């Protein structure tokens, strides 16, 4: 059966991203593995948003990812600092739960 709608499905979009990234990461710079994971995290928050599972803190994480993701291509040090901040923010969310 031809399923034309599946390509618009947010879960399927993430699935495609993960599979093609898994292959791509084998040949690409090591740091790009991290880039794909953090990109996938933002995409996951998108899905959680549609499903009504997001909180303001989670949306802030997504905003931070969107604003800083390109650092990986321009400034490795700043990219890693951004990830450190992100992990800290995540820990705060977990702690307060």
């Amino acid at each position, binding site marked *: 059966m031809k399923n034309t709608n599946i*390509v618009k499905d947010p879960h399927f979009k993430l699935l495609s991203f993960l599979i*093609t990234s898994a292959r*791509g990461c084998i040949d690409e710079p090591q740091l*790009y593995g991290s880039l794909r994971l953090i990109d996938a995290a933002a995409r996951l928050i998108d899905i959680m948003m549609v499903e009504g599972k997001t909180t303001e803190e989670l949306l802030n994480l997504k905003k931070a990812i969107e604003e800083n993701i390109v650092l990986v291509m321009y400034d490795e040090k700043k990219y890693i600092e951004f990830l450190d901040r992100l992990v800290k923010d995540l820990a705060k969310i977990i702690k307060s739960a």
Partner: protein
Amino acid sequence: MCLEDIIRVIKGRRCVRSFREGEIPNEYIHKILEAGIWAPSGGNIQPWEFIVVRNRDMIDKIKLVSPGLFGDPSVIIVVCINLEKAKRGGRIGESMAIIDVSMAAQNIMLVAYALGIGSCPIVSFSKTAVKELLDIPKYVEPILLITLGYTDKWPNPPARRPLEEVVHYEKY
């Protein structure tokens, strides 16, 4: 010819990863591609082939298999090498073909910029998947995607290694 304009275009072109809606006129696409084929190529072999994707659904499908493609471009140009043609370059044919299409790609992006259109070259895409999606024959290899679209966000220029660091006069 105005040298200042050329330098302005070379220095002003940026990789755009956030596009707004807006159809690129066919005549612009034509001009952009024409710039591509006027690139130099080893032995004038011209091993390039370009697939212009404007169909929204197909752009979305290509996005699904291109982890390094950011934003929603209006057009994707799939820059390919015709391996049969590249063979004419001998043992270095394929690596030379990559240099050739890279030069074509730069021309494409510069003319796009001169027309007010943002672009980004993308190597992080699944060649296997794009070949399948676009029915690309075995002897044609996609090398690079170039996204095209209008933008409200021209990024700041990322730093360049200074001339003193990268240029060596007379000997290394």
